[in-house]
């Protein structure tokens, strides 16, 4: 015996039934954010000034690493978009690896770029400069974060806070990719608070925002 579709359900579906184009795969949808990511990476130093040692570190370590980090951010956003699709949620291991790798990328790039870890703000200006970098990075992440939040919400995420934290991480990395072309400080306290803190803030903001965006 096969169950019949209850008529109220069938009527409701039929009333609303029309050809529907499915969403594109998550990695394709993440490509939409490329222009925005490029704009963020260029505008963070472009609207202010470039780090003083741009010439010394060379093209690859400056632009190459920054665009590499932005690409990693886009990949993490694509992972978040995949997580947002019903039935395609990430395993705990994949989630852990994504967060660890995402948070490690700026540190690895710093280690590959810096020759010493004692370049920092002048005495007494540490907090102010830290807040300055934090603010620049966090604000720069917002446009990408809102765009990613919109893309994720269209896909009906089962775990919106997790998806939000993931795309927040991706957007934080993109913004930080621009910030590293602007700020040449290598002092751990400044890097952890001003740069890492902004990435974590973007993650938290993403997790919160995702809760408030209506899903289909």
């Amino acid at each position: 015996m096969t169950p019949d579709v209850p008529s109220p359900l069938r009527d409701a579906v039929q009333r609303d039934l029309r050809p529907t184009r499915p969403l594109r795969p998550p990695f394709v949808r993440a490509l939409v954010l490329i222009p925005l990511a490029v704009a963020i990476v260029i505008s963070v130093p472009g609207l202010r000034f470039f780090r003083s040692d741009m010439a010394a570190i060379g093209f690859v370590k400056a632009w190459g690493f920054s665009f590499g980090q932005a690409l990693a951010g886009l990949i993490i956003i694509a992972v978040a978009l995949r997580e947002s699709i019903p039935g395609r949620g990430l395993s705990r291991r994949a989630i852990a690896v994504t967060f660890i790798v995402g948070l490690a990328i700026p540190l690895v790039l710093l280690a590959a770029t810096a020759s010493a870890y004692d370049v920092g703000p002048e005495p007494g200006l540490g907090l102010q400069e830290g807040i300055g970098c934090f603010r620049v990075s966090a604000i720069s992440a917002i446009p990408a974060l809102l765009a990613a939040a919109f893309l994720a919400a269209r896909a009906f995420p089962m775990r919106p806070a997790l998806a939000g934290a993931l795309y927040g991480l991706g957007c934080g990395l993109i913004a930080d990719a621009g910030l590293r072309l602007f700020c040449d400080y290598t002092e751990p306290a400044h890097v952890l608070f001003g740069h890492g803190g902004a990435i974590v803030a973007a993650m938290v903001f993403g997790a919160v925002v995702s809760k408030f965006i209506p899903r289909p």
Partner: protein
Amino acid sequence: MAPRAKEDGGRMDPPEAELCAHMKAYLDGEIEAFDALYVAFAGRLRGYLLSQCRDATLADDLVQETFMQIHRSRRTYQPGRPVTPWVYAIARHVYLMKRRSAGRRARFEESLAADARADDEVSRDALDVMVSGDEVRRALRGVPEDQRQALLMHHVEGWSFHEIASRLGIRVNAAKTRAFRGMKKMRDYLK
């Protein structure tokens, strides 16, 4: 745990391929494809949801809600991918949302009941102290008949507002209001 569709190097087993075809037709706007998906999944989903909530009526409701949610979010299905995990993920989500809202409602009702109990105890204590006094009788006489009735039924006889409402043929809110106003009048009188 929801069952997973069999996948082998990207190849799906025949029933899953058939479901994919139904899903594709459904996305193209064919209601018959929805019927076929319902026939394929309704029984399985009911069993799965019943195992989660252990309530047959609720499981039936959840199956309907799941299909409505499937309909609303049908564009998130990616053609060529197995349908079963997608459907079960939505069913699980529907169940969890239902459980969450039921939990919230239960907590809310519990807090209302706790407030009512606390009010009751306070009123009874006060009544025990005052009930022998003539002042209370005088105060009660000063309360309008309809309010006095609701007040006594609730605070002295211990009836719930639902019971008072059905006994007096009024709304629950009206019963609450009458008892509250009556109590306020008594308090004012006794001050």
